[in-house]
């Protein structure tokens, strides 16, 4: 007996086979690894209060203790537990990553679709605006904006999203343009299909997986951007992200006190997350149509 596919499964149905998307993801080694890392990170951030032995703000020992069995990564200049800061930081870093990614993807997709599908002067105006956004040196502007808005999670998110969506919209637009020329979209046109039908039933389902893959990469972009802002002292100092830990390590001269671990940990965490996201995004790309990137008929 044939089991009816769910709507979601149908959306992710791949051109080459009948396997469901999830099954294929689990079957690919890279996708599986990425998924495991991501789940582990999610568990850490959800259970941060259980895993972390201390509050990240509590002064619980002497300052600048070296790593030991009591304080895994040592303590900072105020005598706070760095391990606990890292655990809590996971939560905020991932939040910033995912919230920004959602923002970037939503705006980028919307602008890309409107630009590519409507075309003519709308496309012209939107793409010139994107060009301008792309040539602005983003870090410099980020510094400028967050100085005005003051440090804090909200200003970090705003800055990251504002500078994150333009490349995404470019990519979506080019996909929409090439899909518009495809035979199946033209078939819908000569069938007198409505514009929403063409957009939502013809074009969108064929770029969903690509958008999702890029959303994953946007997560890591956002985490890195947050760390960069934190590193130059523009993030919130009242809540902990990996960037904040890195900032503290830098200003307190971690290397002179309790070794290299403190300053390398945040970078390591970001790198591991980055690997997970890249692996997942790659697996997404491979599972769905491998010809996406080259197609242009």
């Amino acid at each position, binding site marked *: 007996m044939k089991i009816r596919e769910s709507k979601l499964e149908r959306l992710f149905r791949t051109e080459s086979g009948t396997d469901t998307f999830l099954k294929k993801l689990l079957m690919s080694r890279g996708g599986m690894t990425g998924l495991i890392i991501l789940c582990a990170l999610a568990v850490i951030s959800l259970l941060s209060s259980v895993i972390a032995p201390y509050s990240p703000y509590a002064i619980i020992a002497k300052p600048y203790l070296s790593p030991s069995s009591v304080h895994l990564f040592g303590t900072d200049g105020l005598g706070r537990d760095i391990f606990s800061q890292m655990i809590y930081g996971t939560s905020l870093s991932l939040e910033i990553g995912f919230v920004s990614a959602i923002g970037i993807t939503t705006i980028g997709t919307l602008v890309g679709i409107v630009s590519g599908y409507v075309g003519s002067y709308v496309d012209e105006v939107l793409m010139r605006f994107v060009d301008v956004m792309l040539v602005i040196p983003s870090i410099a502007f980020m510094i400028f904006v967050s100085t005005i808005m003051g440090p804090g999670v909200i200003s970090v998110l705003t800055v990251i999203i504002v500078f994150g969506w333009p490349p995404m919209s470019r990519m979506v637009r080019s996909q929409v343009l090439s899909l518009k020329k495809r035979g*199946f979209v033209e*078939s*819908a*046109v*000569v*069938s007198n299909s409505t514009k929403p039908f063409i957009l939502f039933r*013809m074009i969108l389902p064929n770029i969903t997986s690509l958008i999702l893959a890029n959303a994953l990469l946007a997560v890591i972009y956002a985490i890195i951007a947050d760390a960069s802002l934190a590193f130059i002292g523009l993030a919130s100092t009242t809540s902990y992200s990996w960037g904040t830990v890195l900032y503290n390590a830098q200003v307190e001269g971690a290397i002179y006190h309790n070794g290299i671990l403190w300053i390398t940990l945040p970078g390591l965490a970001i790198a591991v997350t980055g690997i997970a996201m890249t692996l997942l995004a790659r697996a997404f790309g491979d599972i769905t149509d491998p010809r996406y990137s080259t197609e242009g*008929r």
Partner: protein
Amino acid sequence: MKENETIAMDRVSVRFTSQGRVVPALDDITTTFRLSELVSVVGESGAGKTTLGRALLGLAKPDSGAVMFRGRNIHRLGKREMKDFRKHVQVVFQDPYDVMNPKHVVLDYLSMPLRFISGVSSRADLRSSCSGLLDQVGLEREFLSKYPHQLSGGQKQRIAIARALATEPDFIVADEPTSMLDASAAAGILNLLRKLAAKRGMGYMIITHNMGVAAYASDRIVVMYSGKVVEDSAADDIVNAPRHPYTSVLISHAPLSQRSERKLLAERDGSDADPDATDPWKLSGCRYFARCPRGTEECRKVFPALSTVPGGGSVACWNPLVNDDGSRVS
């Protein structure tokens, strides 16, 4: 009444920009197609035959000229009028492998014109109409729930034809319906189109580079070269007594059932130079001049207009291969 309805192209030009140059894909085409007609448009790639079909369907906008249907320019139709036009004139696209959304099943595909043109909305009605359409093209109703990757090229092409038939059109434009298919599947598709045309009194236009396909499937053949119509006659005349030298080249290159050494021994189109390299747009005269064995000074200077010949048909050539009295030029 329907038999006499036409789609007319009046001085239609379509220009494309390619590598910084403006290339006329269609250059000042004036011709009329009856809706009940079985016609083929033949030419090599780049001749403008696909653009002609697209202009006729309202998919390629002319830079000048008009395509007229029922007294209206189809490129100036409102939404409702366009819907009416799409009901009467439908299309089968060239590449059957790309014609269905990879995420849709056959039912979704065939439902589109029924929903958006015929106004069928209930699922049950859509399902029964679609199985009726599959039946017309010789496929079982089980195909309704298949995805494109589960179908062969010939089956996809049949389904593309079924979609075109959904609104019971008077005329179907089929762009290279067989070029991506095996011989056997190709014969099946052409036979299907012929059968449907005979049964429903429908006409069609087949766009092809293969004179064999054109001769097999149509009564009238329009030959195009470099955006111009160079010959337009009854299929019998074209096959038996081509007038334009280019037509005769296409005829001599068409596949035959039996092995023929002549094709590979004798070069009959008079150009040992690479035909791809000749640039017809530089010429003020006949576009075919560089490849024509019969070219004269006149041909080089002045483009021959398409003019009617005694006995029907028309040709654009200063030195046609058939004299006006019907005798062949030796």
